[in-house]
């Protein structure tokens, strides 16, 4: 669906390139994530892909067509969820949607009530944005991005500023979009979101992709293939996953008391990120 080869981009007057020879591809129906700290080039990559930034080096092919060959019809096919809320404050949520919807082909516009319901804004649709919290505005950002039923979606920190319940609603809906065959490109520095949502992630640092892989594979590869068992009485022991069911020591241990918890010892995505890039996501 999206193929990027050797993508480099420099902002005018910048001393060096912000993106350096990026190579990645995103399949149809895939949720692909860009993970990296602030200033790594995540949003810049998206801006190039949704044609806000031009004059890049390299090749970008979207739906079998070079990005530069796409005209305004490209924007009928893509949806963009911005990192920060951006709505007309003096208009209601419904008026905001109506205005922007009027630029798209009518037959593609989804039912507004259904959209408001997805993000729990059905009772606030006729309120002015001035009365909205940041979280409510972010939810409106989300439905504005999907209201014209695009095939490709770009989300920049889609759960930023959301409480856990609403973040979950958005994540659930993104997963639903994937099931419908939509292609989703997410940038985030929130490992939990990436872990939960993405089929594949790329670690991007200083404008370079360091690694691209499935999050589960990464966690397995970089973690210990072991389980840690903790008993109520305070004893803790670690056992290799291999042949765990026939491991006598393990069986004796779990029988020796009430089990408090059992955890696999795979690495977290954050640990993998630090290990691979030598940087933390908060840098």
């Amino acid at each position, binding site marked *: 669906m999206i193929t990027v080869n050797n993508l480099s981009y420099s902002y005018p007057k910048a001393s060096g390139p912000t993106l350096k020879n990026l190579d990645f591809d995103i399949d149809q129906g895939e949720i692909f994530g860009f993970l990296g700290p602030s200033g790594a080039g995540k949003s810049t990559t998206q801006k190039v892909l949704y044609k806000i930034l031009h004059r890049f080096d390299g090749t970008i092919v979207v739906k079998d067509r070079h990005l530069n060959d796409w005209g305004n019809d490209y924007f009928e096919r*893509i949806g963009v969820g911005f990192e920060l809320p951006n709505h007309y404050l003096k208009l209601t949520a419904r008026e905001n949607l109506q205005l922007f919807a009027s630029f798209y082909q009518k037959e593609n516009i989804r039912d507004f009530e259904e959209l408001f319901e997805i993000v729990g804004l059905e009772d606030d649709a006729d309120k*002015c944005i001035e009365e909205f919290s940041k979280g409510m505005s972010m939810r409106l950002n989300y439905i504005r991005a999907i209201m014209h039923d695009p095939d490709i979606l770009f989300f920049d920190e889609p759960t930023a500023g959301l409480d856990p319940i609403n973040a979950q609603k958005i994540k659930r809906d993104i997963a639903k979009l994937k099931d419908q065959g939509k292609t989703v490109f997410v940038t985030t520095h929130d490992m939990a979101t990436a872990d939960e949502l993405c089929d594949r992630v790329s670690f991007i640092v200083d404008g370079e992709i360091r690694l691209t892989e499935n999050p589960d594979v990464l966690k397995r590869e970089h973690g210990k293939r072991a389980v840690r068992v903790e008993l109520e009485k305070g004893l803790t022991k670690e056992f290799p996953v291999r042949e765990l069911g026939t491991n006598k020591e393990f069986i004796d241990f779990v029988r020796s008391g009430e089990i408090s918890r059992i955890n696999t010892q795979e690495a977290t995505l954050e640990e993998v990120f630090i290990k691979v890039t030598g940087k933390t996501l908060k840098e």
Partner: protein
Amino acid sequence: MEKLINVAINDFKLVFRDKSLRIFFVFPVLSVLVVLYGFPYIANLFPIIRPYISILMMSATMQNSLMFGFIYSMVLIDEKDTNVAKVYGVLPVSNFWFVIFRLIAPFLFATFFTIAMLSVEPFYGISFVSNFYYSALAGLVAPLMVLFVATVSRNKLDGMTWQKLFNLPTSLPLLAFFVPASYSFLFAIFPTHWAYQGFKRLISGESFALYLLFGFVYTVFLISLIAKRFSKSHFQ
């Protein structure tokens, strides 16, 4: 066409729901009343002013355009402030049409109120066709100001400063009527010069079409120049 109407209605709502902006819609109405009642009253009270009524009239028509220019430039600056401009960058509409959508309302409002102003003026008996030509040219100053102020301003405060600065070159060509005729060409760089000179000839019964035509072409040229810069910066 539907998009154009939607954007125009939206802009109108934004202005009307903003307490600090909607008050400015009163001024063009007041200007019409000033031309209708105020100018004749002053001319009767101070006959010495009579020869300068035409200059006051030109100034009033331009102030009318500047008012709409100010109102709508604030809408665009607010759009930049709140990052809404970025959304327009990912909509299936070209930059050219976006600019047209946003400029048509201030142009039409400014033209309409100038027509109204010159229709009620009791001094020169300007025909509707001549009135229309002049008003359309004076009306173009509104979109010129909208684009200029919205392009160079980073925020509303900036916008206020720039709109005040924009007023100066708009009024400056009026000085051409107070300097020897051979020096008046010095003001030709300002687009309003052509409107003022056209107006002067219009009320004197002289040929004015060339002045208005040149003014029109020149102002549209300036608008298109600034529009290019505006398009580069507004959506990012």
